[in-house]
Every structure is written in structure tokens, then in C-alpha cells.
């Protein structure tokens, strides 16, 4: 019988070696960043033994780089650190909000962007914002680094595209063009501490005349995975993001949603509210984009 073990590799190679060693022997290894989801899953869902591979000591999972062209966020950086980064907030205010919304101040002290993404919950707050900002996953693999869009990284409820032996190193983005900004809104019954009942991440680009020239819309907690909504994008592009366009985009989100009813809300409710969130988030993103011109 396998016992629990803990490894805290300090380099990407060491981490890959630990993972390879365990996977090779048919045992279970699981990557941990902040551990805020993992610890709960071990307690409530599956407490079976495994080797926990803590990736927080690896430099590349802790690197935050807001460059002139590219932005890189290490997978294991705690939310509190990201929220405190002014340059990151200036580039992706909506993304930072989506991180900040996860759990309490205590959770923010540990929870990471990479963890939220790998956990691949349909309600994962950052995932909608990542998709809206065209985030690209940087994956450490035996053969070197490989990249993949966030949309294709999340493949199902709790399932990601990592192959055995791989782990997520970080996420990178193109630095947003002038006149671009984002917003993320979610709905929860309380003001804090809940899982999203529905969420919407929106990024828009406005030209000098205030016309929307590019947009990305992603919605969460209304389908098995976060989904991009091209019909909402179509409704926004070419418009001045007026009430009619926002309404159309919202309706497109409601139409694209295929939610379930559960303890957090009814399908009907989620479908309605995700449209409201899209509308409201787009309006916020538009305001920010104007300031960013």
C-alpha cells in the first residue's frame, strides 16, 4: 500500500523527476500549489495516500513579470501577492478581481491562479477571466515546455489537459493593446465566501471613436466548463457598447449557457443571471478601456 509522502522540488527538472518516478511506478502523485482546494478534497472527497508534490519552491512558478509585450504569472503565486501588484492590476483589473474574489483573506494567502485553473471547476472564478484575456498555459513537460490556450486546457468538470508527469508552470498573456481592458463579475448569494453561481469575464477593445473593435467573453458556472461566447462577442464588436449591444450580448450568454440546478442555484436562475453579469461586466470593462486609450 502506498503511503503519503511529501516532496518540495526546487527546480522544474526535480519536479518532473519526482512526478516521473511516481507515475512510472504506478503510484499516485499530485501537484500542490496553495493547497486550498487540495486539502479540502483530501478531507472530504478522496483521502487516499499519494505523494504531494509542492511546487511553491520553484522559481518559475513564483515569477510575476509584467513586461512591455508579455505578462507572465507563475502558477503558484498566492492571490494576495497578485492583488498587491499594481502593474498587473493596471493590465488586467478584471483578472485580478477574479483572483481576489476567491475565498477569504486567509484563502488569498495561499490560493493560486494555477491551482484555480488546474482544479478546473466549472465555477472557477479566474478561468472566465483567463479565457477573456486569452491566457496561454505554460506547461512543464518531459520534452520541455509546451503551451496551450486556457480554453483548451480545461477539458471537463475537474479535468485539465495535463498529461501524466506534467505540471502547470505559469500563464502568459499578450500585454493588452491600447483601449483594451477587462472585467469579471460573479454572482454569489452572500458578499463573500461562496462559490460562483454564475460568472462572466469580458475583455473589450475600443477605438478612438468608442467603437468596440475586439472583444472576448467567457462565462462560468453555467456549463461543464467555462465557455467562450462568440455570439456575445459578435454583438459587441462594431457597436459603441450601448445598452442595446450589451443587452444582446447578455442574451447571447443566456442562450449559450447550459446550466444545471443544484444547491447553489436553479438552471433557470443561472441562465438569467449570467446574462445580467455579462452586461454589467461589459459596461465596467468599457469604462476601463476608455480610460486606457
Amino acid at each position, binding site marked *: 500500500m502506498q503511503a*503519503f509522502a511529501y516532496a518540495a522540488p526546487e527546480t522544474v527538472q526535480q519536479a518532473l523527476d519526482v512526478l516521473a518516478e511516481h507515475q512510472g511506478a504506478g503510484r499516485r502523485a499530485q501537484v500542490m500549489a496553495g493547497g*486550498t482546494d487540495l*486539502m479540502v478534497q483530501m478531507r472530504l472527497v478522496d483521502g487516499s495516500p499519494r505523494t*504531494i508534490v509542492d511546487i511553491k519552491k520553484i522559481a518559475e512558478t513564483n515569477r510575476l513579470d509584467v513586461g512591455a509585450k508579455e505578462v507572465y504569472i507563475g502558477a503558484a503565486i498566492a492571490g494576495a501577492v497578485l492583488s498587491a501588484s499594481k502593474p498587473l492590476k493596471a493590465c488586467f483589473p478584471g483578472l485580478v478581481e477574479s483572483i481576489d474574489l476567491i475565498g477569504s*483573506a*486567509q*484563502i488569498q494567502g*495561499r490560493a493560486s491562479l494555477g491551482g484555480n485553473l488546474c482544479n478546473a471547476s466549472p465555477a472557477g472564478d479566474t478561468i472566465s477571466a483567463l479565457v477573456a484575456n486569452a491566457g496561454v498555459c505554460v506547461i512543464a513537460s518531459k520534452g520541455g515546455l509546451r503551451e496551450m490556450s486556457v480554453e483548451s486546457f480545461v477539458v471537463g468538470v475537474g479535468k485539465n489537459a495535463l498529461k501524466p508527469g506534467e505540471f502547470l508552470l505559469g500563464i502568459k498573456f499578450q500585454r493588452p493593446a491600447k483601449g483594451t481592458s477587462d472585467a469579471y463579475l460573479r454572482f454569489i448569494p452572500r458578499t463573500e465566501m461562496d462559490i460562483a453561481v454564475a460568472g462572466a469575464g469580458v475583455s473589450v477593445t475600443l477605438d478612438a471613436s468608442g467603437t468596440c473593435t475586439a472583444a472576448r467573453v467567457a462565462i462560468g458556472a453555467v456549463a461543464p466548463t467555462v465557455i467562450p461566447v462568440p455570439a456575445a462577442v459578435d454583438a459587441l464588436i462594431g457597436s459603441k457598447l450601448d445598452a442595446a449591444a450589451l443587452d444582446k450580448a447578455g442574451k447571447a450568454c443566456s442562450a449559450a449557457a447550459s446550466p444545471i440546478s443544484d444547491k447553489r442555484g436553479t438552471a433557470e436562475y443561472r441562465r438569467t443571471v449570467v446574462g445580467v453579469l455579462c452586461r454589467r461586466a461589459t459596461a465596467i470593462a468599457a469604462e476601463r478601456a476608455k480610460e486606457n486609450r
Partner: protein
Amino acid sequence: MSKTRVETKINGEQMEFLCEPQQSMLDVLRDTLGLTGTKEGCATGDCGACSVMLDGRLICSCLMLAVESNGRQLTTIEGISRGETLHPIQQKFLQHAALQCGICTPGFVVAAKALLDENPNPTEEEIRYHLAGNLCRCTGYDKIIRAVQDAAQTLRGEAS
């Protein structure tokens, strides 16, 4: 099961303990080290009763592996007051009757300290959101918020 040896500094004191890899920091604090001031209300990060500071950052000790504390610094409720004097947050909790049963109080005190360390002059809304991860079922939070506001004032050196 093989145990791991961990060296960590808790409340300024160098400590050493053995733990199993899957054990939470909370379980080790309470069961191994006898530091029972840190409470367990849920063990899932939803109540904040187990709040501690790890290298100055507020966390739930139930969501951290004990092995992760190797080489780190932890502050628990037992380390908030030094010597004979209570920390102003503790004094204000007493003065404002900001506790009834008292089970959530250690977590609130630690969380409030983490807030005031970073933000010496928080608004009521900032205090409420910062403390949203600490559940209290007795007080309705009113007197807790007032105690934290008053403690912030004292810590800023203003008369209350």
C-alpha cells in the same frame, strides 16, 4: 507510516516536531504541540477559527500541510501578546464585549492583526471584507468591527 522531521519557528521560538506528510498544520499545532488556542471549526477553510500567520501572511492552518512549515515562521494566537501586556486588539475585544462564547475570538484576533499590520487605517467596509473569512455566530459582528476600529486608532497612536 514514516514521519517527517520539521523545524519551524512558532511565535519566535524554534520548534521541532515529527509529523505525517498529510497532517495539517492545525492538527500538529493542537495535537502535537499543544497549542490549542488555534481552534477547529470546520477544517475546510470556511470559518477562520484556525487563522495563523505564516511568514506574516494570514492563512487557515487547516489548509496547510504541517511539513510545509519547515524553515518558515508561524504566529499563532499564543504569540499575539508578549509578556504581561495584551495586544491592543485583545484589549479592545475585551472592552467592547466583542466576544460572547469566545471560540472564534483567537481567529478574529489573528486576522485583525494581519489586517492592521498591512492597513493601519481601514474603513468599516475594508474591515468587514477582510474579516469575512472569520465566522462568528454570537455577536452579529457589530462589536467586533468596533473593537478593530478602536484598536486601529490606538495602534495609530490616536486617542480613542
